[in-house]
């Protein structure tokens, strides 16, 4: 692999700014690496070869004439997860039902990337409709972990995480409903951040669970994540849950010391975590203590219920969101033309994969008459208590530090027959979505040659602090500078 492809997005952006590197050179190297090696990883659903080359040339020309206002992403190849709408380009959500769907509009973040002259080099593979923790439910085949191709990359943003890990791109955008950015970032040894809910517009993100979904970056470093968030965040009238954040620069605090700041270690996150991952977490606590931070244990007893309330709330919202797939307006329609009801049922039954159908059925059950109060309402009431528990914790602590995933990358097919076991992959990431908090996963060490992520969680709108802690860690460690051989 060309050394260029090992650089962080921030380093590449600086090289392009200072005219030591052209966008075309970078795009050519990326495309070559993708063409030579993505057949082993399967991280892309669509590769935009001609378009990216053309756009790179165009950007270089304008840059040479100083006709372009330079943004962080100018001339940088980026992958967008294939549940993010891209006008004129297939947007499949890795589902058969949207196999041939060409979006007639751009998502908010797509517009932001284009406006910043970022180069969308392709669309990333994912679990179907972002429902999964291993990227095995994709209609376009599973993604393989670049560290060991017999293993999963995590999910659902498996493509975006694997592509950064493999060096195909220095950065990508994913979405995170219950851990879908952070868990694959952990399993692939890269940095991935879910910002505070509402800071990035969901307009044009194919909806899974609207009160939990959030778009965020995956890249080599926390600093990269902050720089990308600066571009994609902002209030959008097309998403009424989006709002203007109360700070300007996600990276404004990265040079501030963390001396004297307080880190809470929630022990309830460690219950189902593998021993070697606990050891790595303990080492990272020592690292932070060495930098002057004060770490203390904290109890968050509702943690153990978060997975269950998530598997009520997310499927409930999904069953409602996915009712739009009817084989009428767009998407797959079955050849059954007997009548419209039969066509609807057959289009959905043949168009959705097993996991998606399973979740629609759970959500239909928990929302159905007679069960609504016992399940959906109950889950939302507990959600209130979870939010309160976190609020109380952040009165005492600046951030919380926890593992990202209870295990390292597991073997392909290891958990496909046991949905509950699969769901438990997100035990440490789900509570963050329940409360709408910002959190980042960064590489914290290795266990038997597989990367292990650590997770830094902040209070709502505490995104800067999350990045500050992550950046300090990366300034003083080298885990994020390891690259798999593929």
């Amino acid at each position, binding site marked *: 692999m060309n050394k260029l492809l090992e650089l962080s997005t921030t380093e590449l952006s600086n090289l392009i700014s200072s005219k030591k590197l052209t966008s075309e050179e970078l795009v050519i190297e990326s495309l070559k690496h993708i063409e030579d090696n993505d057949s082993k990883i399967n991280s892309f659903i669509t590769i935009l070869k001609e378009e990216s080359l053309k756009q790179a040339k165009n950007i270089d020309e304008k840059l040479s004439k100083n006709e372009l206002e330079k943004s962080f992403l100018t001339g940088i190849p980026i992958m967008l997860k294939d549940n993010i709408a891209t006008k004129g380009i297939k947007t499949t959500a890795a589902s058969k039902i949207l196999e041939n769907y060409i979006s007639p509009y751009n998502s908010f973040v797509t517009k932001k990337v284009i406006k910043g002259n970022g180069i969308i080099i392709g669309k990333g593979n994912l679990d179907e409709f972002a429902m999964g923790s291993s990227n095995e439910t994709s209609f376009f085949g599973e993604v393989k972990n670049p560290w060991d191709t017999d293993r999963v990359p995590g999910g659902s943003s498996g493509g975006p995480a694997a592509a950064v890990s493999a060096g195909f791109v220095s950065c990508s955008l994913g979405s995170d409903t219950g851990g879908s950015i952070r868990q694959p970032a952990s399993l692939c040894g890269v940095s991935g951040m879910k910002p505070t809910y509402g800071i990035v517009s969901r307009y044009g993100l194919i909806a899974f669970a609207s009160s939990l979904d959030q778009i965020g970056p995956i890249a080599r470093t926390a600093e990269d994540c902050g720089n990308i968030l600066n571009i994609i965040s902002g209030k959008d009238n097309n998403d*009424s849950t989006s709002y203007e954040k109360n700070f300007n620069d996600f990276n404004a605090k990265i040079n501030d010391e963390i001396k004297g700041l307080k880190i809470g270690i929630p022990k309830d996150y460690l219950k189902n975590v593998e021993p070697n991952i606990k050891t790595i977490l303990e080492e990272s606590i020592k690292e932070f203590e060495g930098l002057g931070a004060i770490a203390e244990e904290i109890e968050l007893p509702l943690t153990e219920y978060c997975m*269950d309330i998530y598997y009520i709330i997310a499927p409930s919202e999904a069953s409602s969101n996915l009712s739009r797939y009817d084989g009428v307006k767009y998407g797959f329609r079955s050849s059954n033309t007997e009548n*419209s009801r039969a066509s609807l049922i057959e289009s959905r039954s043949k168009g959705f994969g097993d996991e998606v159908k399973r979740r629609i059925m759970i959500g239909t059950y928990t929302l159905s008459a007679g069960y609504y109060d016992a399940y959906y309402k109950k889950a939302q009431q507990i959600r209130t208590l979870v939010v309160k528990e976190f609020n109380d914790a952040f009165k005492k602590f600046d951030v919380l530090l926890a593992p990202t995933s209870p295990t390292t990358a597991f073997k392909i097919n290891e958990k496909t027959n046991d949905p509950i076991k699969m769901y438990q992959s997100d035990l440490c990431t789900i509570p963050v979505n329940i409360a709408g908090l910002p959190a980042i996963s960064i590489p914290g060490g290795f266990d038997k040659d597989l990367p292990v992520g650590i997770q830094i969680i902040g209070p709502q709108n505490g995104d800067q602090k999350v990045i500050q802690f992550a950046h300090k860690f990366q300034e003083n460690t080298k885990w994020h500078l390891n690259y798999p051989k593929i």
Partner: protein
Amino acid sequence: MKISKKEFENLSKLASLSFESNNENIVSDLEKILSRFESLSKIDTANVEPTSHVTNLQNSMREDKSKTILSNEEILKNSPENTSGQIKIPRVFDNE
């Protein structure tokens, strides 16, 4: 917890999904998943307001003005079947 055959059929109907006649796997998965939720009754939620949205934004309104987002033609491009500027679907009513 058990899901009866009748209950499963009703659920499939509500979800507009059909399953192969051999649907034991999905039924037993659902039973296992739904059983887990029983533990939630241990938590006292009397007088607790439900949270549907976590950021406390209220009344996010926009001006009540119509605007054109996409043309008819652009929208029809993705429809499986269309005719004379309209989406075509199989018949809705039976002959009887």
